[in-house]
C-alpha cells in the first residue's frame, strides 16, 4: 500500500507577475516502509515539496494523499500524528530557551499523551542520548546532539511518515555517519517511511530505495538506487549530477 501518493503537484509563491512556480506537476508514490529520496540543486523545489506536504507552503494544487486519504487545505490533527518533519539546521530548529525536556514534553502534551514522563525517557533512549541530556538547553548540545533532539521530537507523536529535509548537511561527516545510522535503525524498529531530501547523492544512495531527480521544479527522472550506483541515469541532467558528485 502506498504511504504517500503525490500526483500532479503544483506549488507556487506570489501572484500575478510576481508568481514563481516552485514545483510543477510533480508525481511520485512512496510505498509503506520505503525510503524515498529527492535530489536536485538548490532552488529545484525539493524542499518545497516537503513544505507543501506539511502545510508550510499553503499555495498548492494537485493531489497529496497520505495512506490513501487526500489532504485538503486544512489538515486534521490526526495528520500531524502520522506525518512529522526534521529540518536541515539543528541550530535553528530548536527553541533556544526551552530545555530538551520542555521541547519533547510540549510535543507529547499537544498530541494528548498522558504518560509524558515515561515517554520523554523512552524518546531520549531511542535516539541514543540518554537521561543526562534531559534538562539541557540547546546551547549546551553539539550539532549532532541537537539533531538527535529534533529527531526525538519528530518521533514523539509516533508518526508513520518522516519527512527529512537535509538532516545531515549541517553536520560533520563523522557525525553524519552517526545520524544516518540512527535513522536507519529507527526506520527498522518503528517501521517508518522516509521521504528524504538531500543534495548529496551518496547520502541518498546510502539511505534510500528509490529517488527522484528534480530540476527547475520538475521531476526529471525517478530511478532506483541500483541504477544510481551503476551510474545508469537516463536523463542527461541526472547523468550530469552523477558525474559532478563522484
Amino acid at each position, binding site marked *: 500500500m502506498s504511504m504517500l501518493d503525490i500526483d500532479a503537484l503544483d506549488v507556487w509563491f506570489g501572484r500575478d507577475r510576481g508568481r514563481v512556480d516552485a514545483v510543477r506537476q510533480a508525481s511520485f508514490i512512496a510505498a509503506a516502509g520505503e525510503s524515498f529520496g529527492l535530489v536536485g*540543486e*538548490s*532552488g529545484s523545489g525539493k524542499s518545497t515539496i516537503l513544505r507543501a506536504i506539511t502545510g508550510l507552503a499553503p499555495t498548492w494544487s494537485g493531489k497529496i494523499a497520505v495512506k490513501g486519504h487526500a489532504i485538503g487545505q486544512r489538515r486534521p490533527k490526526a495528520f500531524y500524528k502520522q506525518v512529522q518533519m526534521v529540518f536541515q539546521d539543528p541550530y535553528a530548529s530548536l527553541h533556544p530557551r526551552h530545555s530538551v525536556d520542555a521541547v519533547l514534553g510540549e510535543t507529547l502534551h499537544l498530541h494528548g499523551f498522558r504518560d509524558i514522563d515515561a515517554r520523554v525517557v523512552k524518546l531520549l533512549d531511542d535516539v541514543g542520548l540518554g537521561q543526562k541530556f534531559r534538562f539541557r538547553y540547546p546551547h549546551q548540545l553539539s*550539532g549532532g546532539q541537537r539533531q538527535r533532539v529534533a529527531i526525538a521530537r519528530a518521533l514523539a507523536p509516533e508518526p508513520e511518515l518522516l519527512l527529512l529535509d537535509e538532516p545531515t548537511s549541517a553536520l*560533520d*561527516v*563523522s*557525525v*553524519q*555517519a*552517526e545520524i*544516518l*545510522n540512527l535513522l*536507519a535503525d529507527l526506520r527498522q524498529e518503528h517501521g517508518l517511511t522516509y521521504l528524504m531530501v538531500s*543534495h548529496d*547523492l*551518496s*547520502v541518498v*544512495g*546510502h*539511505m534510500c530505495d528509490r529517488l527522484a531527480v528534480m530540476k527547475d521544479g520538475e521531476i526529471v527522472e525517478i530511478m532506483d*538506487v541500483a541504477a*544510481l*550506483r551503476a551510474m545508469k541515469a537516463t536523463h542527461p541532467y541526472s547523468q*550530469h*549530477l552523477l558525474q*559532478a*558528485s*563522484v
Partner: protein
Amino acid sequence: MDHLLDVENLWVRFPTRQGIFDAVRGVSFTLGRERLGIVGESGSGKSMTGRAILRLIRPPGQVEADHIKLDGVDLMQKSEKDMRDVRGERISMVMQDPKFSLNPVMTIGDQIIEAYRLHNRVSKSIAWTKALEMLEAVSIRDPDRVMRAYPHEMSGGMGQRIMIAMMLIPNPEILIADEPTSALDVSVQRQVLDIMDKLVKERGMGLIFISHDLNLVADFCDRVLIMYAGRIVEVCDADKLHDAQHPYTRGLLNSLPRLDAPRDRLEVLTRDPAWSEAPSVSGRV
C-alpha cells in the same frame, strides 16, 4: 623550494569561564607556490589557523607564534597599521558564505572598485575596466549588468565568484579560502574550483584551502594537513589521502557513504584521547 609562508608553533587561545581554551595548539607548516589543504571537523581549529595568519583574531582571543613569516618578514612583529597593507594586498581571504561577506547596500561594482583602489592609486574609470576584466576572469557573463547589481540579486555561485574576483584583484601572493564552496551546489562547486585553480596557477599564488570535505581536498589540493583538536595529526600528499595512516583520517574517510561501495551501516568514528595528546605533526617541507 622557496617558502611564501612559514608558520612556526602557532597557538590561538581564548579565555573562558572554565579557563583558557586552546583552539590551535602549536601548529607549524610552510606554504610554497602550491595548493595546501587543511581538513578537519568543526572545532578542529582549521578556520582559526587561517584567521590567525592574517591576525584577524580579536581580543580576548590571543595569537602566539614563534614566527609567521611572509617572504622572510615576520607578521607577528608588525603593527596593526602595517598589517592592513598585508591584508588584501599580499594575503587575501575568501570566506564561506557570500551572503555574509558582501556588503548588501553597495553595488558589486563599487565593492570591487573599492578593493582595487585601496591598493592601487588609479582613476575610477581605469578601476572600472579592471573590475570588468576580473569579473570576466571568474566567468561571469554580462559583467556590465553585474557591476551595477546588488548582492541580493546574485545567486550563491555568482556571489562566491564575485568574492573571488574581489579578493584576487589586488593580486595577492597568498589566497586563503575558508570553505569557499560549502554553500554551493555540486555542479557549481566544480566551476568555482576550476576558476580558482586557473587563477592561482596563472598568477603563481600560494593557496590555503580550508575544507571539511575530504574527497574535494584529495581531488583539488597538492598537499593536505589533517587537523584534530587544534593540532595537525597527519600531513600527506593529496593524491595519497585515501591511503592515509592515522586512525582519525581513516575514520573520517570510512564514515563517508559511497555510491560505489554500499554498506548497511556506516562506520562511526571512535575517538582516542591519545590523538589530542600527541604532539602536532609538522607540515614543513
